[in-house]
């Protein structure tokens, strides 16, 4: 059933398979388009994660009394913990549809290149996490009465999100086929993603406080290092994971 629906999705006119784009990009795009469309119809991952993220922000406000100077000093930490937790909730959905009714085989049949599947899934997870951040950052700004209008902030958010989502996509592919799926992903992802968390928190703090660009260099270089290592490694490792997902 799912295979059939996927085939129609992949063959639909929305896919630019004949427009001369390299097949790699076409495949990745088709997967993102499929995931975004199905998410827009069901809204299973986004809404739940948004509300969960909001809840974490609110609870941190009670726990740490985040207002004024306290918000500027420790607020970025609370915010990123909320983002990380809510994003991981959503990551459980990245491969959830493929798990059932031979969806993974269908996906593999549609593309000879597993790394195209990886980047398609990665792009979907990235869109999801950025949507989450586009919601949580303004909410935090309003609640904590802090300005987030800093030119440096988008750089920190983009680099941090990219690395976290890359590792998250790889690990959620492994998590989806395992026992105790919901526990599996945080156990693997959180210790590995500690550099991202540290650098994103400190970078956001500097940006919110309006520090000079020079103060952001260490944070941005940690994030860039993590991004480069995991963007290079994950597609290669994903090929081995995907073989096991279908067997």
């Amino acid at each position, binding site marked *: 059933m799912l295979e059939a629906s996927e085939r129609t999705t992949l063959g639909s006119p929305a896919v630019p398979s004949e427009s001369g784009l390299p097949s790699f990009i076409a495949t990745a795009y088709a997967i993102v388009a499929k995931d975004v469309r199905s998410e827009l119809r069901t809204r299973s991952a986004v809404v739940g994660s948004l509300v969960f993220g909001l809840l974490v922000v609110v609870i941190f406000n009670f726990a740490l009394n985040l207002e004024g100077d306290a918000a500027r000093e420790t607020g970025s930490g609370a915010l990123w913990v909320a983002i990380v937790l809510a994003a991981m909730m959503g990551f459980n959905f990245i491969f959830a549809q493929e798990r059932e009714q031979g969806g993974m085989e269908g996906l593999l049949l549609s593309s000879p290149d597993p790394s195209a599947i990886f980047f398609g899934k990665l792009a979907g997870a990235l869109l999801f996490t950025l949507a989450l951040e586009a919601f949580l950052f303004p909410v935090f700004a309003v609640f904590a009465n802090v300005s987030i209008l800093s030119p440096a902030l988008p750089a920190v958010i983009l680099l941090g999100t990219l690395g976290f989502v890359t590792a998250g996509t790889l690990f959620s592919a492994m998590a989806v086929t395992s026992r105790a799926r919901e526990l599996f992903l945080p156990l693997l992802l959180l210790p590995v993603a500690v550099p991202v968390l540290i650098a994103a928190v400190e970078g956001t703090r500097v940006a919110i406080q309006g520090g000079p660009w020079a103060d952001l260099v260490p944070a941005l270089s940690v994030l860039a290092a993590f991004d480069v290592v995991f963007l290079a490694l994950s597609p290669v490792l994903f090929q*081995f994971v995907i073989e096991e997902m279908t067997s």
Partner: protein
Amino acid sequence: MTANRAGARTTISVLAGLTVVLFASAVVAAFIIAPPEMEMGDVQRIFYFHVSAAWTAFLAFFVVLVASILYLRTRLIKWDILATSAAEIGVVFTTVTLLSGSVWARSAWGTWWTWEPRMTTTLMLWLIYVAYLLLREMAEDPDRRGVFAAVFGIAAFADVPIVFMSVRWWRSLHPAVVTEEGFNMDPLMLPALFLSLAAFTTLFAYLLLVRAQLGQSESVLAELRQRLYLEDEAADEYREVLTGTG
């Protein structure tokens, strides 16, 4: 196979003997030959074993990396067994490093724990490889377990330098409660350090071989069980056909 096993058994006995001798000499060198440190006194003697445990842990995780790569390339079960064995031993030695470091920090810095970069990185290392061992528990299918563990083993090792880089920078942002105090090594301290390093390394090799053999036996046993089960089923069917029951 049997000759191989006998050879491995000889190697294990030799390593065991060597480990005992080296540990005895390391203890003598550390507690008798090496002079007490000027400021820290006798407590500093834990340093020789602490450094050796840390070195062994890193060595073990490097073995996990190499065995993981080899497993993904060859899919031979022996590399998977080697990776698990090394990861388990690595976690044990990381625990030893954390505990001995904590005892030393209590005496030298007056606190059981401080988020000093190396301590923090060691803690993260411990958490990452505990996650590695948990991953193995959670994956049901043996082939899948091997591949997932190898993938995580490679990603984890690539992550460690970035963790250290980020933690060191993070510490530099916050006022340090304690500062690093180095000490100049007396030439008489060197035998203790090197003997201890050698003792821990041979101990690691010994444990690794024993654990890998155990893993090998486990996988042989699982295979035999499987075959026995299948034969049993076949025999049952045969009996049912003969007696006309079932």
